Structures are given as structure tokens and as C-alpha cells.
């Protein structure tokens, strides 16, 4: 017998929470489709199907009911974040391997929904970038820069292994890749900015997508799905770290705005680092968690071997999240630290 309360807030479910997050991803995704071609719909569709397939298999294997867990929307969100994080129009097998690790290993081997210590989409991404670095750099160029922008049909062919066009025809080095390569080659930051892939603050096209992720993320905050702590701390730490490095050596290091609006920072700040299962949950813990993740992101970008650091920084901080939570428990009513009784 279940006791009080007998009223639950209406229109409230895990599925609705996940749906709200996906709705907040929509503006950025639309911009992505507009600026980088319709291929993103193909990867979203195929990643979604693969993820649902893996989820169903894992649930069957673990002896769980399919319906409540397939309909909670969590695996679709994982697939969506994964599809936005890996190169669009990569071969299907690459998606399959990434999602196998995201859904089966990172999620279900750790106990399924709510139990994963690591962000599933980022685990999938990390496995791929370590195992198949070449494929992971082949991002489609912005439509206005590409020699050839694949249409929807071509996109299907490319992903399903047909082809006919070589990746060189439609892909290009990302701004972060370009920055890393040219900086290593000793080029001045200003000459790097002159490359066509750079836009007015971040990468061409990418900066617009990032701004729409920011917009969607603010919407999530407004609808109280996430609190301000993680995005604010993450973005502040990215800006401060990048700004500090830029001040030290303006000729070598890009400024804070570039770092904020390039790569996965906006997506990470609002949609990835905020994954409640694997992030810190206390207010102060969230600030520490996201602040350190933002710091590590820039350090990896500037000094590490990979062009972007969002996935690794979030995964590293996922490890520390339970410990941080344990040490940042908020004050409970009536316990020391509150207002002392006075007459």
C-alpha cells in the first residue's frame, strides 16, 4: 500500500523531461541542418534507430519490461546528443560501435536508467575518437564552403556505405582542428583566423549552431529542467581559462569568445554536463563539477592531443561527481550554519 501524498503534479514524467531536453535541442539541430546540409537528419534517424535497438536488446537480456523503458525517451536523447557530437555522415558501423558503447556498456552494464556513472553519449564519443580518430575528424563543411553539399539521398548512401563521393568532397577540418594544426606549426593566431572556416566569433556555421544551443539551454533553465549552476560555471570556467591563456600569449591562444562558441562547449554546458545522472547534484557540487570541467576542456584543447575537450572533461568530472557531492551537502533546516535564534 502506498501512502501520502495522493496528488502528484500533473504532466510530469521522465518522458516529458527528456522531451523537453530534446525540444531544446531542436533550434540548434535545425540550424545545423540549414548550415551544414540535411545529412544531420540521416544521422539522427539512424542513431535513433540503433540506440532503440540496443536499448531493447539490453532490456530483453536483463529481463526488463520493454514498454516503460523504451518510452521514457532517455535513449533517444542519448542518441540525439551522440549524433550531434560525432561527424555527420560517418559510416553506419561507426555509429553502431559508438552507440553500442553508449547504450549497452555505459548505460546497461552499469544498471540502466539512472545508474550510469558516465554520460553515455560521451562514452560513445570517447571510444570512437580514441579508436577511429581519422573518421572522427571528417566533419561536413558548412554548405557555403563545401565543394559539394550532399542532399538527403546522397547522405543516406554515404552513411549506409554506398558513396561515390570521397569524404574530401564534402568534409573539412573543423575550426578547432585548424587552430590546433596551425598553432603547432607556429602560425600566428591572426593568420589562423583568416582561414575561411572561421566565422566572426567561432567557426563558420558552428557559431550559429552554438548560439542556438545557448538559446535552447536558456529555455531549459526557464522551464526548470536544469538549474543555472552547471551551464554558468562551465561557461565561466571556459571563458576564464581561455581568457587567462589569451592574456598570457595573445599571439598563440584564441580568446574566450572563440572557445565559447566553437566545438562542443555550448552543447556541453547546457545538455551534456547537465545530465543529472552522471553530474553533481548539490548546488555547490554543480559549481565545482562544471567549473573544473570547463577548465579541463580548455586545457585539453590548448595543450592536449585532441582538438576538443568537452567529452573528456565531462567524463573525468563524472568520476569525481559522487565525491564532490558527498562534500558539498547543503545545509539542512535547523542545522548549524543557519540563522541563530535571537530574541
Amino acid at each position, binding site marked *: 500500500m502506498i501512502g501520502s*501524498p495522493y496528488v502528484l503534479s500533473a504532466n510530469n514524467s521522465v518522458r516529458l523531461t527528456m522531451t523537453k531536453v530534446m525540444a531544446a535541442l531542436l533550434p540548434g539541430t535545425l540550424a545545423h541542418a540549414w548550415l551544414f546540409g540535411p545529412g544531420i537528419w540521416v544521422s539522427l534517424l539512424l542513431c535513433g534507430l540503433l540506440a532503440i535497438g540496443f536499448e531493447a536488446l539490453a532490456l530483453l537480456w536483463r529481463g526488463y519490461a520493454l514498454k516503460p523503458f523504451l518510452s521514457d525517451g532517455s535513449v533517444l536523447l542519448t542518441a540525439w546528443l551522440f549524433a550531434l557530437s560525432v561527424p555527420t555522415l560517418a559510416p553506419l558501423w561507426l555509429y553502431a560501435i559508438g552507440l553500442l558503447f553508449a547504450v549497452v556498456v555505459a548505460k546497461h552494464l552499469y544498471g540502466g536508467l539512472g545508474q550510469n556513472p558516465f554520460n553515455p553519449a560521451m562514452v560513445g564519443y570517447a571510444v570512437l575518437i580514441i579508436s577511429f580518430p581519422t573518421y572522427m575528424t571528417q566533419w561536413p563543411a558548412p554548405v557555403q564552403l563545401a565543394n559539394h553539399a550532399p542532399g538527403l539521398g546522397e547522405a543516406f548512401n554515404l552513411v549506409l556505405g554506398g558513396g561515390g563521393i570521397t569524404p574530401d568532397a564534402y568534409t573539412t577540418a573543423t575550426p578547432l582542428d585548424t587552430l590546433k594544426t596551425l598553432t603547432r606549426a607556429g602560425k600566428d593566431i591572426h593568420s589562423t583566423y583568416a582561414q575561411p572556416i572561421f566565422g566572426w566569433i567561432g567557426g563558420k556555421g558552428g557559431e550559429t549552431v552554438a548560439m542556438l544551443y545557448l538559446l535552447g539551454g536558456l529555455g531549459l533553465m526557464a522551464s526548470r529542467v536544469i538549474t543555472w549552476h552547471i551551464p554558468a560555471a562551465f561557461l565561466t570556467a571556459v571563458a576564464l581559462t581561455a581568457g587567462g591563456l589569451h592574456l598570457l600569449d595573445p599571439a598563440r591562444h584564441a580568446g574566450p569568445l572563440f572557445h565559447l562558441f566553437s566545438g562542443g562547449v555550448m552543447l556541453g554546458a547546457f545538455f551534456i554536463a547537465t545530465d543529472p545522472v552522471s553530474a553533481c547534484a548539490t548546488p555547490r557540487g554543480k559549481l565545482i563539477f562544471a567549473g573544473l570541467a570547463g577548465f579541463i576542456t580548455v586545457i585539453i584543447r590548448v595543450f592536449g592531443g585532441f582538438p576538443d575537450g568537452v567529452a573528456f572533461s565531462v567524463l573525468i568530472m563524472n568520476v569525481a561527481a559522487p565525491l564532490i557531492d558527498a562534500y558539498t551537502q547543503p545545509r539542512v533546516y535547523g542545522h548549524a550554519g543557519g540563522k541563530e535564534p535571537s530574541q
Partner: protein
Amino acid sequence: MNGTARVLHAFPGGIHPDEHKTESCERPIVGAPLYERYVVPLRQHFGNPARPVVKVGDTVLRGQRIGAADGHISAAVHAPTSGQVTAIGPRPVAHPSGLPDLCMEISADGRDASIAITPIDWRDLAPGELAAKLAEMGLVGLGGAIFPSHVKLEPAAGGIHTLILNGAECEPWITCDDRLMRERANEMLRGAAIMRHALGARHLLLGIEDNKPQAVAAVAEAASALGLPMEVVMVPTRYPSGGGKQLIQLLTGLEVPSGKLSTDIGIQVFNVATAYSLYRAVELGEPLLTRIVTVTGQVRAPGNFEIRLGTPIEQLIRLAGGALPDSRGWLVGGPMMGFELSDTVAPVSKGVNCLIATSDRLFPPRPAALPCIRCGQCALACPVGLQPFEMYVHARAKNFDKARRYQLFDCIECGCCSHVCPSHIPLVDYYRYAKSEIHAQERSKRASDEARQRHDFQAFRLEREKQEKAARLHKAAAGRPPATADDPEAARKQAILDAAIERAKAAKQGVNPRNVEHLTPAQQQQVAEIEARRQHAATEQDT
């Protein structure tokens, strides 16, 4: 007139459940006819049940004490009308456990003859004396906590500077306090003035949620008519503003330290209905015989009814026109902290402030629970600042020490966390379970400690007897004369004996109940309720 402006100190969290006040709040309080049969439970309050002081077959008068307060934390119960005591035995009562409890059945004689009642001249009584006089009037907190009022009216060690009247009535559906304040503000405030006198409180505050403007106006008007210096403060409508600790925080910014009582920071809180009953007890001399109950939900004529304690709930339901065909069951109290009524033959008791007829439309069945995704909505809703999802994880894993380290015992079981949980996890049930398990563990720990001491003493006694026997045999073999008083052997034995007694005494002093010393009465009551539910659940499983 509006409430006094006062700087409010918002408590964290809280929720806005659908209020459902309009169904009943415009219906004036209606009296009830005299019924043929009343069932008066002996336990209608927190603490020891009352002790029967009449026998089956005795004739009683209205207001006659039929159960005496048993000990200090207890309250008397009285006959609701004149008639004959026809039975004393277990009957269904309105309790979360659904277990029957000892009741007295009274068959009304229709005369409704009263005992002689005399007002108490409270103005000449020193604080403390009034509390003693009230001990046999049966007054308890009518907001639902049913704590004996005379205990709360005793002078506190550090003195009371502020008396707060709780008129927040934050639970959805309930409007009995709203109606009381609108219709009987004068009497209620006269009761409050007596309370303030008894406590020696300097400040008198009344907190009302801002969804009750008529009640605010009525109380403010009555206060100025009485010339009673007080503040009527409107607080934002946000559940659980009517929680004692939350109302204190709202009005004063002070927090009751964990494990302490509000009197430790010089504040006492009474429900408005309790103040009204105190007025009747002191100014009219009438013990607590009636209370106002909201009957609402899926009934034909929702409203507020002034009903004699002991009236079978089915009669009360009839007063509200009966349940509509699609009703499913009954809730006692509000939907956030109330409980399901197991049997409508149970009588109205002092803690029954509201009856709600449920239906699938008004109270949709709880969806199946999904795993916790640590979204933190529960933590945002918690008015105490807990991390409910952490307590849940540990309670579910039966890791009770951990749950406790997340301050499980500061949980007030208001239900905000369960209300907002997107995974539909019955969080509060897990906390009730964990609390009851912890208390059970502590009881069994105490029992095993005692058993160990008994065993140790038994082992010592056997050893001593063996030694004594050996000594006797030795003496007999030696054929020596009997030992004298200054025999060193006897002195040695006596020393062993004394040492053993000392050890046993020391061990006995070491046994103290653990971790229950800082519980508030409300928590103790919750513990008692949880225990009762647990036992009930256990018996259900057995059968």
C-alpha cells in the same frame, strides 16, 4: 482590511498543488443533529491513551469525562451526549494503520443533558495553573498533530516571546480553519489571548495563506474590535507554509534547531481551531466535544460541519449528501499528508479535520515508478533543504545509516518530493520505512544489550556458586569449625559479590535508549504511526 506588512522569510522549496478550496470554502459551518450512537476512541491524541473511568452500563452526561488522561502526555475524552455506555472494546478508528483501537460506545438517551459547566477565571491564574486546569478538558492540537494542548501551555524553560497562530491551512481541499476564522474570529482570538496570557508571550502573530482574504479581513476586524494587539500576516500560498517549522521560518526567519522544539527558541505555535476550543474550554467551561470537519471531494454537497467527536463518519458523509457514484474511497486529512480511511464506521476523532471522497478523476492512480534519474526536482521542492534522492537511494538499499547521515530524521514527510518526482517514486513511503526500520533496529539493539548483561551476570553467578560450593566442600573435608564473621574467606566472597553488584549497576546505567532523545513530539508521533503501519503490514503478510 489586509494583513499587517511584515518582512517574510521564505522557506526553500515548496509546491503549488491544485487548491480545490472553492468546493467547500463558501459553505458556512453546519451543525449536526443528535445521533443515536456515538463511538469515542480513548486514543485521539498523541501520547498515552485515556484510561476509562466509566463502566459498561453507566449513565453519562454530555461533557462528562469518560476517559482520564493517563500520565502527563495524554488527554481526557468526554461523552458527546447524555446516555448509557453500552460497550468498551476495539472498534475501527480513523488511523493510518487501519487497526481497530479501544473505544467506548455510547447510546444516546435523546435528552442531551449536560454536566454543570463553569468558566475558568483565567485572568487571576498564574501561568502553569491554567495548564493544569486544562489537562482534563481534552484539548489537543486540532490542526492534525493532536498533541495535548495543556503540555504546550506550560511555561517553557527559556520563556516564550512569540505565540504564533497557524491559520495557513496549506493542504489542498481543507477549509475548516478558513470557515472558523471567517465565522468565529472573535471567539478564536479570545482563546488566543488566553494562550498568550498563559505563556507570557509578548508577540502574537497569526499566519494565513493569501488565498483566504475573507478570513484575514475577519480576523483583523475582530482583533481591532477586541483591542487585541497582534499581527495578522498574509503568507504566500505555497505548501507547506502551514508546517509549524515553515510558518515560524516565514514569520520570524528563525529555524527550530534540529531535534529541538520551537519552545527552545521561545516560540509556541497553535492551530486556530485549537485557540477556538480553548476559548470554549476556558470562557464557557466546556471540554472538547466537537470539531469542525471539511467534507469535500466527490460528494453531493461539500461543506464544513461542526460535529460531535465520536460521530460515526458514515453519518458525517450523509450530512454532505453522500458520496457520488464514481467515488472510490475516502481520505482523512489533506491529500498531501493524510491517509486512506479503511472503514467509514470509524468515528470522527480529534485529529479528523477533513474527509475527501476520492475518484479516479480527482486522484488519478499513481503511475508505475521508474528509476530515479537524480534530476534534483525533489531537492528543489524540499522545504527542509534535504537531498531526497540521496535518502531514497540509501533507504531503498536498506543502507539506513547512510540515509540517516543525509538527515533522514529532519524530514517532515510533507510529500513535496513525491509530488514533483518525474519518476513517480513514492519517496515518502521509503522514508517512513527507513525511519521505522531504524527505530526497530534500535529497539532490538537495546534488547540484545540487556540480554548480554543478563547472560554475563548469569555466568558470574554460576561461577560464584561453584566457588562457594568448592569452599564448603573444602571446609567440610577439613572438618573445621563454621566460619566466623571475620572469616577472611567470607570477606573475600562478600567482596566478589559486591563487585558483581557494582558491575551490574554500572552496566544498567549504561543502557540508554539511543537516538530518540532529540525527537520532536511530531516525529515521535510519526514513529508511532510508522510502527503501527509496520505491524499492520506484517500482519497482512502473515495472513
